[in-house]
């Protein structure tokens, strides 16, 4: 469980996050949705400590993460897996080396044990016969799956995904969504996904938080989202003609 309490963040006097309060539950896929520039990524990066929040607390299962000392934070981060928007795989390492990296760095496993664990993770995300390829030699969807494999290599308690579907075709995007959902249940993780993809909301949104101009504007489940009367959220959800048609059909 991750609790965000009264978090605010500014850059050069521009307030990007305003007094955010939200609870992300364990074993569920928690989604942060909002327009580009609404503060989603800043919130996610503040939660994981890549940005220091100006005010407020970020509490990971009772531990105030943003108040920890540098070394304590480092220890805590071993329990965190992260999937970045572009995958963020290490260009100079092969697929297998990328997945083995956290094992190399933080475990005392033997080479064969590390290789076995890496292969287990790669198999779990359906990457087969690509161990010796470099990130530039595989597709965007495969890169995302390898990044997920790397993120789960150390059995993390928390998984963060920053726009996991960006740049992917709809079918591959659904595969990635399903994978995130399955892994969240399998590893009983607290998963937070940053997205503006409405398909993801409908597929995996156990809990959804809508952020608007740096403020928490709405919170609920994927089933509640279509019935909301929140104007800004409706504008966001029904921005496309396809979603407007779905709404019209539902209303009929």
């Amino acid at each position, binding site marked *: 469980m991750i609790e965000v309490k009264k978090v605010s963040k500014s850059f050069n006097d521009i307030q990007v996050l305003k007094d955010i309060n939200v609870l992300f539950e364990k074993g569920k896929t928690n989604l942060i949705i909002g327009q580009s520039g609404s503060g989603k990524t800043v919130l996610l*990066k503040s939660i*994981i400590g*890549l940005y220091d929040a100006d005010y407020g607390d970020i509490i990971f299962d009772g531990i105030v993460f943003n108040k920890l000392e540098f070394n304590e*934070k*480092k*220890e*805590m*981060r*071993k329990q*965190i897996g*992260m999937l*970045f*928007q*572009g995958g*963020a*795989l*290490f*260009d100079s390492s092969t697929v297998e080396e990328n997945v083995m*990296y*956290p094992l*190399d*760095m*933080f475990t005392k496993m033997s080479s064969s044990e590390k290789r076995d664990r890496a292969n287990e993770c790669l198999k779990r995300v359906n990457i087969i016969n690509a161990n010796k390829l470099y990130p530039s030699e595989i597709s965007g969807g495969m890169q995302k799956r390898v990044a997920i494999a790397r993120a789960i290599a150390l059995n993390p308690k928390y998984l*963060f995904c920053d726009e996991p579907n960006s740049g992917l075709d709809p079918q591959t995007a659904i595969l990635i969504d399903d994978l995130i959902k399955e892994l969240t249940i399998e590893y009983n993780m607290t998963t937070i996904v940053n997205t503006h993809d409405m398909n993801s909301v409908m597929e995996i949104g156990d809990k959804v938080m809508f952020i608007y101009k740096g403020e928490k504007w709405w919170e609920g489940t994927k089933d509640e989202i279509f019935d909301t009367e929140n104007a800004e959220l409706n504008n966001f959800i029904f921005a496309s003609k396809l979603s407007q048609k779905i709404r019209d059909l539902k209303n009929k």
Partner: protein
Amino acid sequence: MSLFNQVGKYFLLLFRVFSKPEKMKIYYRETIKEFEKLGLNSIGIIAIISVFMGAVITIQTAYNTENPMLPTYLIGLAARDSILLEFSSTIVALILAGKIGSNIASEIGTMRVTEQIDALEIMGVNSASYLILPKIIATVLFSPFLCLMSMIVGIFGGWVAGVSTGVTTTQDYIYGIQYAFIPYYIVYALIKMAIFAFLITSISAYHGYYSYGGSLEVGKSSTKAVVRSSIFILLFNVILTQLLLS
């Protein structure tokens, strides 16, 4: 204010670079890779430049000393001292600033803008130390060898050019390079080279590490890395010459 800010950021980065490594074995492996990438891969260019540098110094010295009052071995002596004292350390360092400085800044800068550095931080890895320390160790340890090689190849280039153009003879040249030889000049050049290597690597890594934006910013960081490394090499050349030779 910006200058103080940058100097402060540079030293804070160095503080992180020299903090205790997470796993020595991995750092050792990375250092070996950097030896190959930054050191061994620079041998070719340094050798080519040193041959031509030695040749030009010999020919220019010969044309500037066409005086029967001056001893014939002076060409070899002047070529040796120029190469040992200045060219094999400072000029080679300036060339390395262009070659490995831009390489380091663009590599680390690209890792920054593609969030690979963020990925390391999220895993709990000290990204500054992991990415920069092996490069510093590799260049500081390897660059004196490059300097030594440059001296040998440069003097050889001078001999080839001198003899083939007829401005000197083999005997005069060899006598010249042995005449009044001060071994400390080699030590002086090697010390300078190690310090220049540290400057090149740390300044370039600093510019790469604090790149933000996209490919344009990475390109700008790479240019800044080369320009600033070169300026600091020249500045420290004066300081070190005063300290080590006075």
